[in-house]
């Protein structure tokens, strides 16, 4: 090895050798930068989980897990404080499910429309418009929900109009562009030869879309739904304004209820650090994290399993 390096130096001008060595040094350095970035990302998530998890686990000094997870009685400010979070958990899952159910058919149809049917000029308008909606602050969505959707629902269905339904409508609009854009990208990235193969067999456009393109784009569509769902689970401000925030299991889609995120913001700022109440809010944050992570992993696994071997 020693020998070969010397020979190299003899063959090549000195300056070039230095250049090569410097490039190699840079290459090594950059590799560490990239590894470092990855390590940092990992550290961040672990410290978040650690922080939220530690603070949350302190709840169990004052509250039994059975009460927290299985009771619906949330009355932290009463003389005999009760910390049952089941109602929040229930509503969170219901709200997420409903908003995804509302958004996905629309978003997927929209994606197909944009990728395969719409004329070019229409796409060129719709796509940036959709991107724009990702940037509209949730407070604005909330405001529209509060001033227009809630009163309208109240008028149509009677009652006050607050509840899971208006929240789901708002969330569906919020996540629609995300799901649509990513699904469209996936559809567009499919090799043209799949479509050609189907058309050449005499399939109509609709048959091609339904039987070939959508199945082939499945994994990208899953990613899109997961991202949308993640946003729906974590959304706070907009939901707060329209869901009503009663700490109970709702009797209908138009009954006031609370989800985990709004339960947290509602009281986080005004409760004292280190009290059982405050700790319970951190525990809800942990719960939220665990739910969204397991939903995501679950869907990923399901998608992988249903793929062809």
């Amino acid at each position, binding site marked *: 090895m020693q020998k070969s390096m010397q020979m190299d130096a003899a063959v090549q001008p000195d300056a070039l050798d230095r250049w090569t060595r410097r490039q190699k040094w840079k290459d090594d350095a950059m590799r560490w930068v990239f590894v470092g970035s990855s390590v940092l990302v990992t550290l961040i998530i672990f410290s978040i989980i650690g922080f939220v998890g530690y603070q949350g686990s302190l709840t169990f000094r004052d509250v039994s897990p059975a009460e927290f997870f299985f009771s619906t009685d949330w009355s932290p400010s009463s003389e005999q404080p009760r910390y049952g979070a089941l109602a929040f958990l229930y509503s969170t899952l219901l709200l997420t499910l409903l908003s995804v159910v509302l958004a996905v058919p629309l978003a997927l149809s929209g994606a197909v429309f944009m990728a395969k049917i719409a004329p070019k000029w229409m796409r060129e308008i719709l796509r940036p418009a959709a991107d724009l909606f990702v940037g509209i602050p949730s407070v604005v969505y909330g405001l529209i929900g509060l001033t227009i959707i809630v009163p309208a629902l109240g008028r149509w269905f009677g009652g006050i109009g607050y509840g899971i339904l208006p929240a789901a409508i708002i969330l569906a609009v919020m996540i629609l562009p995300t799901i649509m854009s990513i699904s469209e990208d996936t559809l567009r990235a499919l090799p043209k030869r799949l479509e050609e*193969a189907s*058309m050449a*067999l*005499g399939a109509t456009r609709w048959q091609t879309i339904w039987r070939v393109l959508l199945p082939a784009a499945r994994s990208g569509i899953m990613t899109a739904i997961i991202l949308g769902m993640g946003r729906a689970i974590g959304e706070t401000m907009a939901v707060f304004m329209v869901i009503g925030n009663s700490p109970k299991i709702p009797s209908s889609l138009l009954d006031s209820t609370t989800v985990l995120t709004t339960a947290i913001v509602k009281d986080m700022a005004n409760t004292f650090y280190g009290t059982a109440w405050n700790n319970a809010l951190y525990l809800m944050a942990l719960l939220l994290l665990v739910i969204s992570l397991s939903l995501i992993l679950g869907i990923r696994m399901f998608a992988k399993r249903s793929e*062809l071997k």
Partner: protein
Amino acid sequence: MALIQIEKLNLYYSEFHALKNIRMDIQEKSITAFIGPSGCGKSTLLRTLNRMNDTIKGVRIEGSVAISGKNIYESGAGVETLRKNVGMVFQQPNPFPKSIYDNVAYGPRIHGTTRKAELDEIVEKSLRSAALWDEVKDYLKKSAYGLSGGQQQRLCIARALAVSPQILLMDEPTSALDPISTLKIEELIQELKDNYTIVIVTHNMQQAARVSSQTAFFLNGEVVEFADTVKLFSNPEDQRTEDYITGRFG
């Protein structure tokens, strides 16, 4: 009467005049080869036969292509019916990301066959015709992507056969394959001739000479010469054909 009759066919990609005044008669149950340098319009002409050019924006067609005496650009039967009758195999094997079985059953299904027993029969018959049955019969539920390139191409042929077309178009079906797979496909083409009318585009003159009964030589969107394969290769009439087939081109 010839099965396919092409009359005064002109095709434009927007401005670009890609096919110039093509006339050609193709007989039933024959194998016709299209040869010529890249970009001369072989694929374009092939695709006018099943109207796959319809999917490309800005394509304009003049003249007529008649199959069994009916102009396919005017008939009311619809492009789906036409394509069912005129199957196509592409340069790159392009199976669907589905199982082997579902690939072959795709065509029958979209055309309304749903009974399992019937489908089973069609799948087996098509795979046998494509000389693939013995290799895959135990793995019908496996993904088509697990097959080798040559197997995939035969699968695509089986898929095309499953809707029982009359005509089979092949656009350089072996150019992505190794010689052994190529040989297999060539043998298969020879066998298929008994039941189908085949039009094949190829870059490989040896291949054209081996498999086809007629050959058309293209240049710049025109058919320079269209004749019996043996005649065209041994005794071409046009100087340009001769230059091309002897490699002295340009």
